[in-house]
Structure formats: structure tokens, C-alpha cells
């Protein structure tokens, strides 16, 4: 197949297609009518640049056409479900990968590297006993806690990864099943990337803020309450 890259009308139709939303039938109708209109203009002796200028830029025309797209609610719900499923699958899959990486680091450097406590963390004797039961081969309470916490980190994350793979499978199956009633861009194009960015950034921001507030409270002994925190630069 060859493409006429020099034809401005073809280029305009390509650009219009990218911006159009709605059912395939609606999109095809808009494109067919647009092409017929522009070819009619050329036949009437109007130059291609003028015909395109009179028709309006693709973004404006698509925005007007999209208002009439009327994507049916079931299709919108399906697209939302598919988008949510792929987001969940990718997110949980990434957590699963981090679980395998934690397991690798555990094997290479030991459980303290993965889930070792900060030096000032201590446990009650009762909690130590629980750790000893969960990690009977550990040399002491701190080692037992690290073993238990590393096991938790690895197990929970790898389980999350397995759930992600299952959701990915469901996503593939649903996508195949719902292919009969697709809608071109029923959801705004920026929705999924925006939600993905928010989902990945917000928890990090929250944990960073929590860390900052913890560090903020970690003032040198005897310092005035208004003085700069010792570790504020680490935020």
C-alpha cells in the first residue's frame, strides 16, 4: 500500500481522525463528509489551502463533531473498565516485580537489607516472642523482625503481581469480547495518562510528606521550637 503524503486533504483527514471521538460509524461519517466537502471545493476551483482554511482547523471541527458523538453509556462504562483494568494490571505488575527484586536482594544481602529496622526501633518482649515464633532460626529479636518483615514484603508484593497478571488476563479477554462494539476514544485521550500519573505520584507525595513531617519533629535537643529542623534538607 502506498500513501500520498503530499496530499494536504489526506493529511487533514489523518489529523481529524486523531481528534475524533465516538462510535466508528460516527467517525467514518464525519470523515466521509469532510472528504467529500473538500474534494467538492477542489472541483469548484478552490485551492486546497483555502478549502482547508475555510473548513476550519481539525481540532475545532473535531471538537464540534465530538459534541454530537453521543457515546452510549454501556460503551463508556466498558472503556472505563478496560482503562481501570489495564492501570491496575500495570500497577500491580510493577509491585510484583519489586517483590521479586526484594526476594533477590534478600537472597544476596539478607533480610535486614530489605526490611531492617531503623536503629532506634525497639520491640516489646511480647512482640519479640511473636517474631521468634515466625522466624525461629533468627539469632535475635531484630533479626527475627527483619526476617518476618522481609517475608511480608516479598509475599505481599509477589501476590500483588499475581493479581496483576490475573487482571491483565481478564483485560485481554474483555477486550476481545467487547471488540464488537468499540468506540474510538470514548474516553478523553488524556484521562488514562492523567489518572496513571496521579496514582503513581500521590502515594509517593504522601509518604514524602509523612517523612518530612517526621524529620521536622526530629529537632536537636534543646533547640527552640521555631528553629530549623536538623534534617529539613533531607525532605
Amino acid at each position: 500500500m502506498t500513501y500520498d503524503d503530499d496530499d494536504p486533504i489526506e493529511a487533514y483527514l489523518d489529523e481529524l481522525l486523531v481528534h475524533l471521538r465516538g462510535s466508528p460509524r460516527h467517525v467514518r461519517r464525519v470523515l466521509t463528509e469532510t472528504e467529500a466537502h473538500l474534494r467538492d471545493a477542489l472541483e469548484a476551483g478552490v485551492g486546497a489551502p483555502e478549502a482547508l482554511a475555510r473548513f476550519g482547523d481539525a481540532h475545532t471541527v473535531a471538537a464540534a463533531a465530538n459534541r454530537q458523538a453521543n457515546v452510549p453509556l454501556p460503551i463508556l462504562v466498558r472503556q472505563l473498565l478496560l482503562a481501570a483494568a489495564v492501570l491496575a494490571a500495570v500497577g500491580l505488575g510493577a509491585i510484583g516485580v519489586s517483590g521479586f527484586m526484594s526476594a533477590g536482594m534478600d537472597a544476596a544481602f539478607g533480610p535486614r537489607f530489605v526490611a531492617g529496622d531503623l536503629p532506634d526501633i525497639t520491640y516489646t518482649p511480647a512482640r519479640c516472642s511473636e517474631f521468634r515464633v515466625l522466624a525461629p532460626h533468627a539469632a535475635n529479636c531484630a533479626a527475627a523482625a527483619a526476617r518476618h518483615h522481609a517475608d511480608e514484603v516479598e509475599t505481599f508484593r509477589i501476590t500483588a503481581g499475581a493479581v496483576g497478571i490475573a487482571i491483565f488476563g481478564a483485560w485481554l479477554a474483555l477486550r476481545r469480547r467487547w471488540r464488537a462494539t468499540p468506540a474510538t476514544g470514548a474516553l478523553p485521550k488524556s484521562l488514562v495518562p492523567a489518572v496513571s500519573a496521579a496514582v503513581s505520584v500521590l502515594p509517593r507525595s504522601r509518604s514524602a510528606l509523612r517523612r518530612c513531617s517526621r524529620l521536622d519533629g526530629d529537632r536537636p535537643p534543646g533547640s527552640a521550637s521555631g528553629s530549623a529542623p536538623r534534617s529539613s534538607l533531607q525532605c
Partner: protein
Amino acid sequence: MKGHLDLLLLSVLRDGPAHGYAVIARVAERSDGHFDFAEGTVYPALHKLESEGLVVSDWSTEGGRKRRVYALSAAGGEALAELKAEWTRFARGMQAVLAS
């Protein structure tokens, strides 16, 4: 202009069925080129009129090119009469104010 596009489109379709390009050409011809709008936005306006039942449309092939031909429906004829009466009242009121 935007609020009166429906009236313009219904009005030119009263002369008979036409595809989009011809509808726009009729508006341009009758207005003596006075109305200047992005021609591409006329199609969504025609689609809206169709979804409201004021125009009907069907595919036709002329000269090997597929076109959607629009025609005024019975409801469209009634809507045209109402919109036209409304516009006439508005124009008369404006004229009276401007002339005083």
C-alpha cells in the same frame, strides 16, 4: 451567528434536499458572502438537527463520491416557521430601537 445557524440551515433546506457542500454554498450565496464561519462546523450542526428529528439524511453517490444528502423533515418545517417568526419579532424590535 452561532445561535442562528439552525435557522439558516433549515431555511436553505426548505429549497430542497442538498449535501453539506451545497447547503453551505446556498447560505453563502443567499447571504452574499456575509456569513463567515468554519464550514466544518456546519456538519455537526446538521447532525444535531438530524438527531432532533428536524432533518433527515441518507447516503447517495454522485460522480463516484459518497455524500450525505440532507432534507427538511415535517417537524423541521414546523420548527423553521417558529424560528423564523421568532427572528422576525427580534429583528423588528431591534429595528425599532435602532431607528428611535
